[in-house]
């Protein structure tokens, strides 16, 4: 322990042994809090600096916090792992716990912390916070369900093998960071879609070992009988292959995965572009109308 030159060595020699982990990587993976960001159910402000030398920039959980209104309209029932409670504040500068402001430096972050805490306290004493938080919790629990299309309920084994290959492709594609080909058309029936050439490659999970399982659980089948279009199942109750099948089915219906879905951010650039397009459309329609009037 006394010869440890880095934190990792220290953790390897002491913390790992004391807490009974096999490797130091296992300890770090268990201790990391990025898995828990989407599970938080109280208002949470996350402040990180992009030039932080210790907690590095790429791990800032943008995707766990972002959910634009357009996505809300387009993918209402999708299994988005977004949290309505988190507010992420990413600064360009600031270092690790720095955020010094002013010529004689003082912490900007502590002002923000106190401001945020006071906002929550005042909302709590006014009785405004609690109903909002309860509504958001309901909303969040409703979001944690898988959308199963009705068209899936009576498919054959060929479809399930296709689906498994699609699922394995989607898991492999996230590593290779290749965008999912948009040739899987949304809305068309899945059996008639021609798989793109990438799908014909040998997949990671051999399709022969996967016996065609019942696609919908009995309770889900009963729900499907009553519900006209879709059913909702808690994803935790399903085995992993069914989750993969449902994910692949959603992928086939939508044509996009969470990894390949375009990220829509309302940024100044975006707004400028939108404004320019709208202005151009207005000008074009005005000119067109003028010409129409001149013709008549």
């Amino acid at each position, binding site marked *: *322990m*006394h010869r440890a*030159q*880095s*934190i*990792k*060595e220290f953790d390897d020699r*002491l913390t790992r042994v*004391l*807490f009974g982990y096999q490797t130091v990587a296992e300890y770090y993976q268990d*201790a*990391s*809090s990025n898995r*828990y*960001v*989407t599970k*938080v159910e*109280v208002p949470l*402000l996350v*402040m*990180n600096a992009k*030039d932080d*030398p*210790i*907690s*590095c920039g790429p*791990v800032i959980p*943008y995707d766990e916090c*972002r959910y634009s*209104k357009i996505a809300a309209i387009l993918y209402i029932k999708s299994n988005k792992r977004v949290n*309505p409670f988190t507010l992420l*504040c*990413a600064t*360009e500068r600031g*270092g690790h*716990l*720095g*955020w010094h402001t002013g*010529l004689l*430096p*003082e*912490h900007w*972050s*502590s*002002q*923000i*912390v*106190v*401001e*945020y*805490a*006071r*906002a*929550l*306290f005042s909302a709590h*004493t006014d009785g405004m*916070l609690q109903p*909002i938080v309860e509504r*958001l*919790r309901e909303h969040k629990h409703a979001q944690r369900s898988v959308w199963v299309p009705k068209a899936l309920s009576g498919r054959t084994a060929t479809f399930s093998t296709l689906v498994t290959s699609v699922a394995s492709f989607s898991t492999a594609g996230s590593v290779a960071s290749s965008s999912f080909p948009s040739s899987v058309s949304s809305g068309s029936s899945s059996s008639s879609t021609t798989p793109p050439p990438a799908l014909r490659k040998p997949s990671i999970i051999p399709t022969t070992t996967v016996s065609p399982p019942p696609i919908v659980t009995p309770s889900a089948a009963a729900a499907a009988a009553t519900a006209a279009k879709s059913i909702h199942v808690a994803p935790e109750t399903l085995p992993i292959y069914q989750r993969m099948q449902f994910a692949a089915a959603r992928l086939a219906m939508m044509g996009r995965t969470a990894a390949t879905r375009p990220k829509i951010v309302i940024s100044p650039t975006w707004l400028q572009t939108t404004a320019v397009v709208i202005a151009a459309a207005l000008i074009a329609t005005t000119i067109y109308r003028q010409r129409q009037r001149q013709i008549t």
Partner: protein
Amino acid sequence: MWTLVSALVAAGLAAAAVHRYWTHAQRVTLVHNATSELIPLLRATCPRLFARRFVPTPWMTNGHVQTVFTSVSNALAAFPEVRYVREEVLLPDGGCITLDWNEGPWEPTTPTLVLLHGLTGGSQEGYIKSTVDAAMRSGVRSVVFNARGCAGSRLRTSQIFCAAYTDDLRHALAKIRAAVPDSPLVAAGFSLGSNILVKYLGEEGDRTPLLGAVSLGNPFDLMCAMRRLEEDWLHDLLYNRTLAGNLKRFYSKYYWSRQGKSFFLKIFSMLFFCEGTRRTSMTPTSTPSTCTAPSPSRSLTTG
């Protein structure tokens, strides 16, 4: 001629730096769920946060300077002195944590801010004192949760400050809730403390007594942070060795069982009374059974 050229180049570089400072460096990105009803409420009540502008100190040109200055200013005692009242909490496994309550005439309904420090920190860290001071000025009581062995908490078992272990925070929050039952609670964690806080909140869901939380400088992925610290000589020299040295000093003082002894007294007590070898030995071979590992069921199923 060359003087003129170099002066022009220098002026151009300076202009570029100033331009970058005013356009890029002050940018704050706020990312949130657009459908959340919480955001309009916060937008109305947090003008500083939603101003989306953080003006860093001009002479701190990058994150390294900001980070180093955080520790330097702490060593220079650049922060206001904050008075604490210490409370010691004994844990069921025999360990000990301390709660440092900010001193002051507080009413029972005064809101409370719970602060969690970073690696080998404590209630005397600059960022903690600054936050306590700002909270005190705006009429918020604050309490600092010192982890095992940190800031003078006694290390009574061999279990140390661990990033994966959230039960200490659970006990501390129960204690705080019992001490101030009428006061609303908000927690703020710094660095490794925020990692523990977010992990705790994710495990608890809606069963937590906290109204809300703030996480500052959270190393969300510890493996990534460690790789970052080791990949680069600058990071290695500036942070990794410093923090590892802190850790070693921190635990070797428990190894020698008591602070403030002279070297000869240490050797004497070790030779004749076996002190330092018996009480909290940090060698992994003598791990007592009181040490509880985090349950694998919770950690494995939630992934």
